[in-house]
């Protein structure tokens, strides 16, 4: 049926026109994006600005807006805290879903500002000191996990306290206990990659 480029393009357009017929953008997606227009301007500060550039972060924010089910556990943090809205209990970013069943796409998680890594929280909330009956388990999922260790440098917001943790096998399952409750800003480095995120620990 296809003899030259014009005919090929024509056939392709016909086929795709039929294929996409009846498929329209979900109005809720459009509405959520419009809401993001406001929140991006509303938040200030270094972390919020970086987060606004992170596709993954805004993706989960969208799902929150669409589903209305995204509890943001940092909401009780002081105004301007990096932990405000840091933890999402919505669908994981698409790129991070490999290995998860569709039923477990929705899970508490934090997202790197650079969209390079997320931390899936299997303890929600994380606690300091650790809860006696549940570990502070975080599954780190990186776009490029690499082969080297994951080094986490943590700084407690509003204080001088710092801590360093290493996950020898690189991004993957870990138990991350930190020395005090509060909003911890983490800088994560692994196999030539670097990303930052904030994680609240509850006392």
């Amino acid at each position, binding site marked *: *049926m*296809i*003899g030259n*480029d014009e005919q*090929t*393009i024509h*056939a*392709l*357009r*016909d*086929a*795709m026109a*039929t*294929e*996409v017929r009846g*498929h*329209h*953008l*979900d109005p809720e*997606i*459009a509405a*959520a*994006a*419009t*809401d*993001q*227009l*406001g929140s*991006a*301007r*509303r938040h200030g500060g270094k972390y919020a600005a970086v987060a*606004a*550039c992170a*596709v*993954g972060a*805004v*993706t989960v*924010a*969208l*799902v929150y807006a669409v589903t209305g089910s995204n509890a943001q556990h940092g909401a009780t943090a002081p105004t301007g805290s990096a932990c405000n809205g840091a933890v999402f209990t919505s669908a994981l970013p*698409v*790129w991070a879903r*490999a*290995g998860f069943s569709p039923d477990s796409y929705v899970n508490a998680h934090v997202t790197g500002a650079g969209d390079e890594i997320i931390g899936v929280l299997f303890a929600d909330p994380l606690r300091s000191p650790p809860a006696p009956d549940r570990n502070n388990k975080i599954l780190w999922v990186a*776009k*490029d996990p690499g082969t080297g260790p994951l080094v986490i440098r943590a700084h407690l917001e509003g204080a001088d306290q710092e801590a360093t943790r290493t996950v020898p096998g690189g991004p993957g399952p870990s138990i991350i206990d930190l020395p005090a409750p509060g909003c911890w800003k983490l800088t994560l480095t692994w196999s030539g990659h670097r990303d930052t995120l904030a994680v609240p620990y509850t006392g």
Partner: protein
Amino acid sequence: MADIDHEQRAEFENFVSAQGDRLLHAAYGMCGDWQHAEDLVQQVLLKVASRWSRITDNPGGYAYRCLARANIDRWRMLRRRPEIITDPTVITVVRPRGDRPPSDVDDRLTVIDALRALPPRQRAIVVLRYLQDLSEADTAHALGISVGAVKSGGARGLARLRTANPSPFQEVER
């Protein structure tokens, strides 16, 4: 939302209204899956929204650029994770007809399958240049490649679509 510039909000809503379906269809053309296409467009619109006040020229071009990059990122992730077996790049273009005569549906699906079988960047070129009617320059800008690469990639993509169409399968019927 009180500090939102109503004019900017209206402009953004108009942009989404005008471009939303086109972006969704382009995303589908690139990734071959409606669910992923919606996810991609979500990402793109949120990114555009977060930078709306700073996008002073051609927001559509910026959106297509975000879309192309998000799709490439997604494809790279799928390639790194072997447990994912639904990578659209491995979908076969062979669709034997058995004893049935060829139909328009067969032709359409074969073209779509052939599109999905193109390498991701070549597929993106074909989608943006020939399905979305972007100029060669805009396609190049969206994909971060040269106009020459758009021309050559588009030509190769069309050639592969041409060779994937029903004629090879007619031998099956004999």
